[in-house]
Structures are given as structure tokens and as C-alpha cells.
């Protein structure tokens, strides 16, 4: 009974030109009885949002599939929606292209702002989320961006890997702090160490984090220049092969041209490779090697992965030295026999 009265009331409101009041009453009716075809039909014309209108049409057709007029109206609405969607896609694509151009001209902040506004407008494509994930330095923004990106493009393995890596950092703030430190982002590193200190499991861990924070705060105070891990790795790689080369010079009596043993020269490259591996294990850096060889989600190298990398590096470094010393022992024997 009440439903009929409300229906009459809503129709009177429409006739009187009170469309908003009528819409609210029709919405009340479909709430009381979701199978009221008349109310849904009126709503198809009274709702503002295109998607809401489509929904109302679908409800009418669900109740009465033979309603030809509504069927035609739904087709019109769907065509309109498609048109709008294409227009929106075109606009987003243009804006993404513009943002990419801004990135190319090193205007990262502007590009990020543009991507953010696209995301806020609700028309974000996978490319928009990708842009935000690439450009933002805020983990709380990057993680949901990657999540949205993966919802739209589930096959994007690179983004999935990055998402897992960030989620790993989110759960391990100490590693995150170390990564920021490695990137020379002292402010973020101190912030992350603060979060890590709150999550510390023991007093000793808290103390370690405290000292680490003091250390990097000193770096900031002293205005210490930032050197990327690549520079440190390159620098520290040189030590062992340099020593090997000097010893080789002694071994061949300063005459590099008469070295009879080709293997000894190959050794120089072995020490170079070994030196690189030791340097990689000793300097905190993000490398694809960690995820490729050790399946490390963070790509920063776990302590165990570093231990294995350093051990392998030392073996590679020591092998040519051993060969050199074996060769020297043969000469020493001959020298002792000559006495």
C-alpha cells in the first residue's frame, strides 16, 4: 500500500516540476521493493550520472526483458558511454604523452602533478599509474599506484616485481632506510630509521639504529658529498687486481713481454671479476644480480646472499694468486738446488 502511495506522490512531484524530490522518492521505492519496474523506469530519466542511468535500465530489463523502449534507450546510453570513454581515453593518452615529455625535459615534479590530477579525475589508465609509480618517491603513493596498475595490467611482470619489492621494504623499514641511504636521500633514510626503531625487536637493535641515525645525521651536518654505490663498487674492485698486477711484474722481472705463462695473465681478469664480486657484497647497492641469482625480492642482497657473493669473490681472487705462487715455488726450488 505504502509503495503505491509513494509512487503517486513521486509522479505528482514530477508533474509539479520537483524532479529532485521525485527522484528521492523513487529511490526510496526501489529500496523498499527492488523489483518495482515503474520506479526504475522513472529513474532512468531522472538520474544524472550516465552509469546510474545504465544501471536503472538494466534493472528494468531484468524485471521485464520485453520492454522495447528501455532496451533502445539502454543501447543509446551504452553508445554514449563508449563515446565518452573513447574521448576520455584519448584525453588521458594525450596527457600521459605530455607528462612523458615533461619527464624528458627533467620536469619530474610537473609530470608527477599531472599524473596525480589524471588519477584524481578518475580516468586513470595503466600508464597514469605507471607514471606515478615511476616518478613518486613516496612509498605510500607508489604502492597503491602499483596495485592499481597491476589491477589494470596483471601481466606486467616488471611492475609486479617492483610492487613485491616495495611491499618487502614496507615490512622491513631497516632495509628501506639502507636503500634510501644508498640513494643519498638522507631525510628519507632518517625517517625510515625512525620507523625501524619503533619496530625494533631488541634493545641492541634499537641502539644500532640509533648509532646509524647519528652517523647519517653527521653526514648531513658535515655536508658530505654523495657518491653512488656504482662509484664505490668500481673503486673497490681495483684493489685485488692491482696487487696481482704488481706481483706479476715482480714475477716476470719487470719484463711484461716475456711472460711464458699465459694463464698468469688470465689471472688478472679473474682477480678483476673476484674484486668486483667482493666489492658488490661489501657495498650496499641494488643490483639485478641479487634478484637473478638469489631470488632476492628487495634486490639489495640479503646477508646470506652477500656472504656467498663475497666467498665466491674471494675464491676467484685467491685462485690466480695461488697459481702465481705455485709458479714462484717452482722457481724457488730451482734456486735452492743451485746452492
Amino acid at each position, binding site marked *: 500500500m505504502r509503495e503505491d502511495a509513494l509512487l503517486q506522490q513521486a509522479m505528482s512531484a514530477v508533474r509539479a516540476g520537483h524532479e529532485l524530490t521525485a527522484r528521492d522518492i523513487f529511490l526510496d521505492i526501489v529500496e523498499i521493493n527492488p523489483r518495482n519496474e515503474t520506479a526504475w523506469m522513472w529513474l532512468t530519466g531522472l538520474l544524472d550520472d550516465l552509469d546510474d542511468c545504465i544501471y536503472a535500465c538494466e534493472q528494468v530489463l531484468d524485471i521485464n526483458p520485453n520492454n522495447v523502449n528501455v532496451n533502445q534507450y539502454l543501447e543509446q546510453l551504452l553508445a554514449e558511454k563508449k563515446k565518452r570513454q573513447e574521448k576520455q581515453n584519448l584525453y588521458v593518452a594525450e596527457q600521459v604523452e605530455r607528462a612523458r615529455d615533461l619527464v624528458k625535459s627533467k620536469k619530474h615534479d610537473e609530470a608527477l602533478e599531472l599524473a596525480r590530477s589524471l588519477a584524481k579525475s578518475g580516468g586513470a589508465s595503466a600508464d597514469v599509474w605507471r607514471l606515478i609509480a615511476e616518478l613518486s618517491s613516496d612509498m605510500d603513493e607508489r604502492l597503491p599506484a602499483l596495485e592499481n596498475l597491476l589491477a589494470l595490467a596483471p601481466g606486467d611482470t616488471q611492475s609486479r616485481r617492483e610492487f613485491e619489492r616495495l611491499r618487502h621494504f614496507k615490512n622491513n623499514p631497516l632495509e628501506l632506510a639502507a636503500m634510501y641511504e644508498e640513494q643519498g636521500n638522507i631525510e628519507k633514510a632518517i625517517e625510515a630509521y625512525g620507523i625501524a626503531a619503533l619496530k625494533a625487536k631488541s634493545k641492541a637493535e634499537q641502539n644500532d639504529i640509533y648509532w646509524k641515525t647519528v652517523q647519517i645525521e653527521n653526514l648531513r651536518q658535515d*655536508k*658530505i658529498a654523495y657518491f653512488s*654505490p656504482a662509484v664505490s663498487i668500481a673503486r673497490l674492485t681495483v684493489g685485488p687486481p*692491482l696487487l696481482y698486477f*704488481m706481483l706479476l711484474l*715482480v714475477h716476470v722481472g*719487470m719484463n711484461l713481454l716475456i711472460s711464458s705463462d699465459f694463464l698468469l695473465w688470465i689471472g688478472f681478469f679473474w682477480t678483476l671479476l673476484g674484486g668486483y664480486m667482493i666489492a658488490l657484497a661489501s657495498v650496499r647497492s641494488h643490483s639485478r644480480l641479487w634478484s637473478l641469482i638469489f631470488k632476492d625480492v628487495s634486490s639489495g642482497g640479503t646477508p646470506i646472499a652477500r656472504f656467498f657473493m663475497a666467498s665466491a669473490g674471494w675464491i676467484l681472487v685467491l685462485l690466480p694468486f695461488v697459481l*702465481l705462487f705455485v709458479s714462484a715455488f717452482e722457481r724457488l726450488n730451482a*734456486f735452492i738446488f743451485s746452492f
Partner: protein
Amino acid sequence: MLPLNDTEPNRYSRFPYMTVVLIAVNTAILIWELTLPEDALRGVFIVFGSTPSLLWAREGAGIISTMTSMFLHGGIDHLLGNMLFLWVFGRRVEDACGAWRYLIFYLLAGTTSDLLTALALPRQSIPGIGASGAIFGVMGAYFVLFPSGRIRTLWFITFIPTWPRIRAFWFVLYYLLIQIPPAVFSYMNGVQYGTGYWAHLGGFSACIFIPLFMRPEAFARYMSDVPV
């Protein structure tokens, strides 16, 4: 003029393990040397000391003698002098490099000291022994990294001892400069001294490689022109 200690604290590590290990190994080898009869000891020096003429002829122990000669000493006074310098200057250099890189640098300095001696005095037939070449390398590294560091130094003014704190720059420079005249004289006249002046200069020259062995933090501080 003898160094007594370096008055600055460590920045990165708590204890200079590798410096202590090097001192212990040198001491242990000297104790072993002292147990040998004189003839045997002479044989050890000939075989395991570094002789430039043998190096050029590609005879003798080659790199084995390069490595072993820097752990052999001619007596207790020789060892004590060298180890005092190693302790005073090695502690902070090890702190700036880390133990293993410091060891590689130490061995590299010993090798460059041998190489320069061989280049300057190719006909020298006296075997060179002692850690002083490598220790001069460590002093050179100290000179590069901590020129404003203060070294407490024992002086005797007539017979009265004093121990002022001297700037490392001047201290090391003094020791470097007093090597040059006898080194040049031995080069010009072929005189063979009992002290390896060229070995000292050669070891010192290894200090140009010290940036390759520094910890990343220490290197960043050094390049930013703040105390390492």
C-alpha cells in the same frame, strides 16, 4: 724523534684487528728467527729476503720473497721500531679502510717498495728484509688521509725527554725527506746501505692508491674535504 701514539679516536671500527694481527705475525716470525743458528738464518735471509738483482734475473723466490721479506726482521730493535710505527699509523688507516682492504693495501705497499728498489738499484745483491717499506706505505696513507692528525712524539732535547703532539703532515714529511738524500746518493754512486731507502720511498709511493681501498663513508668524507 719517535712516534708514541695517535691521539685521535677511531670513527668507523672499535679495534684495529688487522694491525694487531700483522704485529703478532711479525713478532712470531722474529721469535722463530731467533731460534735458528746463524748460518741457517743467513740462508733464510738470502732465500726469503728480496734481492733486486735476482728479481731482474727472474731467479730466486720472486714474489714469494716479496711477500716473505716484509715479515722478516734483522733483530729485536728492528722489529720494535717498525711495529711502533705500524701501531701508531696503522690503527686509523685500518679504520678508514676496513681490515681486509687494509691488508691488501699493506701488501701492495710492500710490493711497490720492492719494485721501486729493483728499478732504482737493479744490481743490488743485498737481500732486503723488514716491514718498513709496507709501513711507509701506511704512513703515506696516513699523510694523505689525516694530514692534520696529531702524533704524540718522543723527543730528546739533550738528555731531557719531551713528548709534544706534532701534526702528522710535518712528522711524515720529515721522515719522507730524510730518505731522499741517501736514496739519491745510493742511486748515483751505487753504494749499498744497510737501510732500504728506496724501499721506503717505494712503499710511500703506494699512498696514491689509498683512495681505492677506503670505505665508502670515509671516501665520501675525504672527497668532501672534511676529516676522514
